[in-house]
Structures are given as structure tokens and as C-alpha cells.
């Protein structure tokens, strides 16, 4: 059971400028991890008349976030907006497995080693926990910051209704339906992507987003791999420190002091290395993963717009046909007007959304890259200092 205290290395700042509006402020003030679910305490501060109180909290689980997200996606009114991407499911499986393996292997290692490893796995668990809290919070903040979505009724219910929303996860049938919907969408997407857009802006955005999305995906995967190797190396240094310690306590020559000093040094440096890996994870991997999801959401928007364009063109054709046959002309005219209106509405908001997306993206990358560089420097300098002081000590004492 872990409580979140979001002070150290605030992982939520993948997006920026979301908390400036006093009329509606949302955050996750607390979280509890139970056996296989996480309970988030969603805390709202608002001066809007829609809510009964100015400040209130409810407890929500992951499925309820998903329900909210899906309700946005399915709402035709929001077709012209980039729907903030849903937070990923909290996944403690890997961490739990490791803790279990540790428990099983308890007999084969010394008490110190066991305690050390347990501490580390617990720290890892805590880090994953903090991350999932951050990602759920970012989602809510994005919704709260969006001029239209923040007014959504489901959103208000989500924030205020202090009973269980009784949102069950999708059952098999619904998951299958989703699957087919996605297949159709991607097939459609290919067709739609083939249609050259008259509007330069959107044509450019389409090309850009397709390529960008793929490259972010690749960068995200490679970043993960790199960071994992880094963690592995830090683990090795941990083991080396332990072995050196044992050697130091058993040696009969003057090497014993030497080994103990080096062991102490490696204990400290490997903590630094672990932090480097963790910070790279937060500032680089998480950033890339987030923009992978956001760029997908942007692609979905473009898809919806293209879809409505196709509908509009089809409606035009139908109108022409009706006029030529002089049958159901009124019907065709109405239909065409609806499609035209829909298309124009989507196009207008989509343009703004995509511009905002770029602004947000540039700001987020800037913030994270600067912080990444600063943290790398901080840790490297820390490491350097540890190494130099140890070397200084050893050289004067030999």
C-alpha cells in the first residue's frame, strides 16, 4: 500500500501551462494502491456555478478515467478536437513479479543483500506508482484546461459524483467490437489518407503527423531500451559494491580498508546511476511516450476531419444526382448542408487544435530537455565529486 507524495521530481510536468485557470483546478491529491487496483483521490477547486461546492474530492479508479475518455471520443460534438489521450493502465505486474522472485530467492542470499534488493524493488514500485498517478492527473488537467471539454457534463459527474460510477470495464464482446472498429478505422484511414487535401495547412499537417508519429514511436522504444541497460548496469554496480564489502571484511592485508572504501564509493555512485536512469525515464521516455499518444490523438482528429470531408463530398454528389433527377432534392440539400456545416466546424477547430498541439509540444520538449540536461549535469558532477574524493583519500593513504 503506497501513498503518493508528489514532491520529489514531480513527474507530472509533461505538459505545461495547464494550471493557470482558477475557475477550474483539478489534481490528484492522494492515491492508494491495493492488491490489483489503484484508487485515485480526485480533488477539484472551482468557482464555477455548475458545482455544489467550491472544493470537493472523490475517489476514482482507472476504468472510470477510461469511461470518461471514451465518452469524449464517441461524442460527435467533440469530433473537431484533439481528445486528450487516455492514461495507460497501471501496470505493477513486472514489479510484483520481481518482488515475488526475490521472496523465493531469499534463502540464497545474505541478509544484507536481501534487504538491499528489497529496498530497491520497493523504490521501483513506488516510482511506477508515482508515474501512473502523474499520467492520470495530466489527463484530467488537459480536460480541465480545454475550453470546450471542461464544460462536458460527464466530466462534471466524474469530478463531483461521490458514489461509484458503476462503470464496468468492457466485456469481451465490447472489446471485440472495439477491435473491429479500429480495424475499420485504420483501413479507412488509409483510404482517407490517400485523398489529397485542397487545404495546404491540413495537407502539411497530415504528412507531418504521419511521419512524426512513427518516429516518436521508434524513439520511445529505443529510449526505453537504453534506459533499461542503464538500470542493469546500476544493478551490477550494486552487486559489485556488495562483493567488495565482503572482500573488505575478510581480507587479511591492507587491502581490506581499500576494498571497504571502494565498496562505499560504489554504493553511492550506483545510487546516482539509478537516479540518472530514473530521471532519463521521466524526462525523456515519458515525454516521448506522451507525445506518441498525443500525436495519435491528433491523427485521429485528422482522420475524423477527412471522414467528414468524404461525407461532404458524397453529399455533394448525392445532391447533384438528386437535382439532375429532380427527386428528393430538399432532402439532399439538407443533408448536404449538414455535412458542409460539420466539415467546416471540424476544420476550424481542428486548425486551432493543431496549432495548440504544436505550441504545447514545443514547450514540453523544451522544458523536459532543459531539465534532462540539468539533471544529467547535476548527477555527473555528483558522481565526479564522489570519485575524486575517494581517489584523493586513497592516493594519500598508499
Amino acid at each position, binding site marked *: 500500500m503506497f501513498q503518493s507524495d508528489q514532491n520529489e521530481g514531480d513527474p507530472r510536468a509533461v505538459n505545461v501551462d495547464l494550471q493557470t485557470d482558477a475557475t477550474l483546478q483539478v489534481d490528484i491529491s492522494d492515491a492508494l494502491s491495493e492488491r490489483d487496483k489503484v484508487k485515485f483521490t480526485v480533488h477539484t477547486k472551482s468557482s464555477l456555478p455548475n458545482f455544489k461546492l467550491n472544493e470537493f474530492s472523490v475517489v476514482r479508479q482507472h476504468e472510470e478515467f477510461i469511461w470518461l475518455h471514451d465518452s469524449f471520443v464517441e461524442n460527435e460534438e467533440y469530433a473537431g478536437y484533439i481528445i486528450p489521450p487516455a492514461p495507460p493502465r497501471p501496470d505493477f505486474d513486472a514489479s510484483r513479479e520481481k518482488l515475488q522472485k526475490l521472496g523465493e530467492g531469499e534463502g540464497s542470499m545474505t541478509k544484507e543483500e536481501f534487504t538491499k534488493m528489497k529496498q530497491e524493488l520497493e523504490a521501483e514500485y513506488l516510482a511506477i506508482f508515482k508515474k501512473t498517478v502523474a499520467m492520470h492527473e495530466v489527463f484530467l488537467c488537459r480536460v480541465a484546461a480545454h475550453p470546450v471539454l471542461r464544460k462536458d457534463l460527464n466530466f462534471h459527474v466524474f469530478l463531483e459524483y461521490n458514489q461509484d460510477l458503476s462503470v464496468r470495464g468492457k466485456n469481451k464482446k465490447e472489446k471485440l467490437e472495439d477491435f473491429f472498429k479500429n480495424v475499420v478505422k485504420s483501413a479507412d484511414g488509409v483510404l482517407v489518407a490517400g485523398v489529397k487535401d485542397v487545404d495546404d495547412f491540413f495537407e502539411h499537417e497530415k504528412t*507531418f503527423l504521419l511521419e512524426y508519429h512513427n518516429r516518436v514511436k521508434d524513439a520511445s522504444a529505443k529510449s526505453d531500451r537504453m534506459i533499461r541497460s542503464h538500470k542493469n548496469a546500476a544493478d551490477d554496480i550494486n552487486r559489485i559494491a556488495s562483493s567488495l564489502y565482503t572482500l573488505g571484511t575478510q581480507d587479511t592485508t591492507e587491502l581490506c580498508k581499500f576494498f571497504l572504501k571502494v565498496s562505499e564509493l560504489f554504493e553511492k555512485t550506483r545510487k546516482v546511476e539509478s537516479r540518472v536512469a530514473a530521471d532519463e525515464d521521466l524526462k525523456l521516455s515519458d515525454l516521448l511516450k506522451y507525445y506518441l499518444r498525443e500525436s495519435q490523438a491528433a491523427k485521429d482528429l485528422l482522420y475524423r476531419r477527412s471522414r467528414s470531408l468524404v461525407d461532404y463530398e458524397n453529399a455533394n454528389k448525392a445532391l447533384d444526382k438528386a437535382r439532375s433527377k429532380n427527386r428528393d432534392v430538399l432532402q439532399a440539400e439538407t443533408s448536404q448542408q449538414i455535412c458542409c456545416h460539420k466539415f467546416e466546424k471540424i476544420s476550424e477547430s481542428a486548425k486551432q487544435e493543431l496549432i495548440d498541439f504544436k505550441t504545447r509540444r*514545443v514547450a514540453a520538449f523544451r522544458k523536459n530537455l532543459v531539465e534532462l540536461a540539468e539533471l544529467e549535469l547535476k548527477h555527473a558532477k555528483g558522481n*565526479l565529486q564522489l570519485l575524486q574524493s575517494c581517489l584523493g583519500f586513497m592516493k594519500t593513504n*598508499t
Partner: protein
Amino acid sequence: MADTDREDEELFTEPSGTQSQPASLSTEDVSANTNGPNQDALFDDDPEDLFAEATEEVSLDSPERDILLSDGPSPAITPITPPTSVIAPRIGHTHDDMFTHSSFDEIEEEEVDDSFDINISVSDPEKVGDGMNAYMAYKVTTKTSMSLFKQREFSVKRRFSDFLGLHSKLASKYLHVGYIVPPAPEKSIVGMTKVKVGKEDQSSNEFVEKRRSALERYLMRTVKHHILLKDPDVLQFLESSELPRAVSTQALSSAGLLRMVNKAADAVNKMTIKMNESDAWFEEKQQHFESLDVQLRKLHISVESLVCHRKELSVNTAQFAKSAAMLGNSEDHTALSRALSQLAEVEEKMDQLHQDQANADFYLFSELLGDYVRLLAAVKGVFDHRIKTWQKWQDSQILLQKKREAEAKLQFTNKSDKLQQAKDEIKDEIEEMEGRVQQDERDFEQISRTIRKEVGRFEKERVKDFKTSIIKYLESLVLTQQQLIKYWEAFLPEAKAIS
């Protein structure tokens, strides 16, 4: 040099050096020479005893000796000569006879600090020949100011089997009298085959570099030993331009097979000899080395894992760098695009940094541990030899006892015709056995003394080695961090410039 044998790749892999020579000289094959210091020659004041020792004898006719000892007297004739005096004329002065001194510790200090100035480097690996008969030739350069050598700086070309041959000779001469002979680097069939087959890729280059470094460390360790440094085989190895091929290092030769048989015999013997240890020092030291062995192996495994993961990190960083560059290319905001390209450049530099660090991890840390794990096996070897020497002494005592009993029995027999002859015979035999028992006891005491000194020397070396290497390793870590700081400091303004 037409040889169909490939001594550098063995079908039966042998661990380098330590137990490859049988403990007792009497079973030695002629080609694995026995012209080491004959124990008898060294410790007996009575020259007559030398020739009475029919079973243990220097093979005076072994061919190598002619080359080696052309300017010195043969050991069998010169009485009371410690191993170093075998080449006394070349040194120019005789050493203290360390074996007539009652305490040897003082001597040890003199020996070691006496202007030890020699540096050996192994370089310029060169492939000689083609196909499966090809081999790598290494240049061995010695720089020294010691009067032991004819020149101050000189080079020779040697191949791997030459190193193995040198070790083989040294081991057969010195291991059984208690000297810790540094083991030679290990053979590697896979590694060498790749090189022979001509693969000019990174892994075979790495293999050659690994081996070159190991050979260099091996030679330095060998010459750091004040006794081994003066051995004629070592001098010949370092100085003479032509070296007779070390045929006996081939596994499938008769010498090789004999070695394997003897090793098996040794293994059995080791398990059955239980010694009445009168000196707690030895048991203490043995336990100490055993636990050191366990710890070093464990540490070695962790360091090897670090090397592996660091190399992985390097590869993954390079891949990420490429990916980040691609991302930068597709980013349509100009400043961000540039920053991402800069990030890609930083990561590329980091990839090289990780690669360099992995090499430092390996050569300064991992190989040190590997060397010491193998050295500890040699240390264990000399302790085992001591036990065997003790066993030999016990056996002689038992035999003497038996003969005495036989003599006593003869007193009470009435077979008068052959009685006097038998009595005389047994008297001679008893006298001989008494001499043998005394000799074996002296051998045992000698090896015990030698081991004490050797352990002292070994531990001193170990302390120095570890300190030097680990300090160098920490310095490599310092360098890496300094580079990291440089790279990220250069990147930071680029990131801040995004607007």
C-alpha cells in the same frame, strides 16, 4: 616449420599452467624438460648422495639444456647451488646461499628490491601464414637497465604456443618446490579459429587485443618474480631471436596425454591425502585463499556482467541517437528540430563514452580478477605439492620402518648360509633409507619455507596489483564523468534556445 598439429587450438582444453606438470620428476617426459634445480643438488652437503639418487635425476642429455647452459656449469655437478646460481657467471656475483641460512626472511627483502627495473610490452600482433596453419606473432619488447641482460632494449617475435611452452618449463621446474609460477593465458579454440579463418571483424580484433594484453600481463608477472626472472628459459624467451618450438604444449602429443594422465592421478591423490598439519599457519593460509577465491569469483562474475551491460548500453544509446536524429528531422518547429539533432549528437558521443568505459571495466577490473582467480589456482597447487612432499616423507619413513623390521627378523633366522650376506644387504638398504628419510624431511621443510616466503611475496604483489589497477579504474570513471559534463554543458544552451 611444417606442422600439421595446431597447438594453439586444442581439442582437449587444459586449464593454463598450474597442474599441467606432474608433481614428481620421475614420471616426467624428457621433452618437458627436467633441467630445473634438482632438489638433491641443492640441499645436500654430501656430493655422494647425488649419485645415489637413481630415481630422481636431472636428464643431462636433454637437448634444450645445451642451448641454455652453454656458459654455465651444470647443476648436478655444482653442489649447494640455489636455483639462481645456475647462471651464476652471467650475474657476475654469487648470491647468498639462501639455503644454508637459518632464517630466510631477511634475504627476501634484498632479493626483491635489488634494482628491479624491467618493462616488457607485447605489441604488433601480426597474422603469419594462411588458413588453419596460420598463427598470430606478437612482438615482445624488453626495456631494462639490469645487468642480467645483454642489452638495454630488445625485441623478439613470439607466438602463443611459445608463451605456453615457457610456462610449461617454469612450472615443471618450480611448482613442486613451492614457487608460485604465474599461469599462462588460457587457450581458446573458438577465438583462434576465427582469427585463422581470416575474419577481420570486431570480435576477432577484440580477441587478439584481449590476448595481447593477457600475454603482456603474464610476462610482467613472471619477471616480477625475482627467481623466475633469472631463469635461463625466461631469459632465452625474452632475448633469443629463434626459439625451439614448444611441441609439448600440444594436447594430442605424448607429453600432452601424459600430462592428462598425471593430472587425473593427482586429482585422486589430492582427495585421499590427509596431512597431520603441525603448523597452523598453512591451514590458516589455505582457508584464507579458499575464501578469497570464492569472493573473487563472485566479484568477477558481477564485473563481467557490468561489462556486458555497459556494452549493451553503448549499442542502445547509438540506436537511440539515430532515432532522435530522425525525430529531429521530422519535427517541423525549427528550433526544436535543431535541439533534437543536438541531442542526437550528444547521445552519439555518449555511446562512444560507454564503449570506452566498458573497455576500462574489462581491462582494468575484470581481467585483474580473472588473473587472480587463475593465480590462486597456482597458489593452491603449491600447497598441494607441499602435502605431496609430506606424503613422500611419510612413505619413506614407513619404508625405513619396514626395513628395520626386516633386519630385526633376520637376527632371529637360522638360515646361516645366506645370513651374513642378507644382513649386510639390509644394513646398506637401511642406511640408504635413512638418508632418504632425511632428504625427504629436508625437502618438506624446504618447501614449507619457500611457500611461506612465496605467500608473503604473493600477498605483497596482490596488494600492489589491486591498488594500482583499481585506482586506474577509478581514474577512468572520473574521466567518463568529466566528458559527460562537457557534453551536457554544451547541450544545455541549445535546449534553452528552443522558443
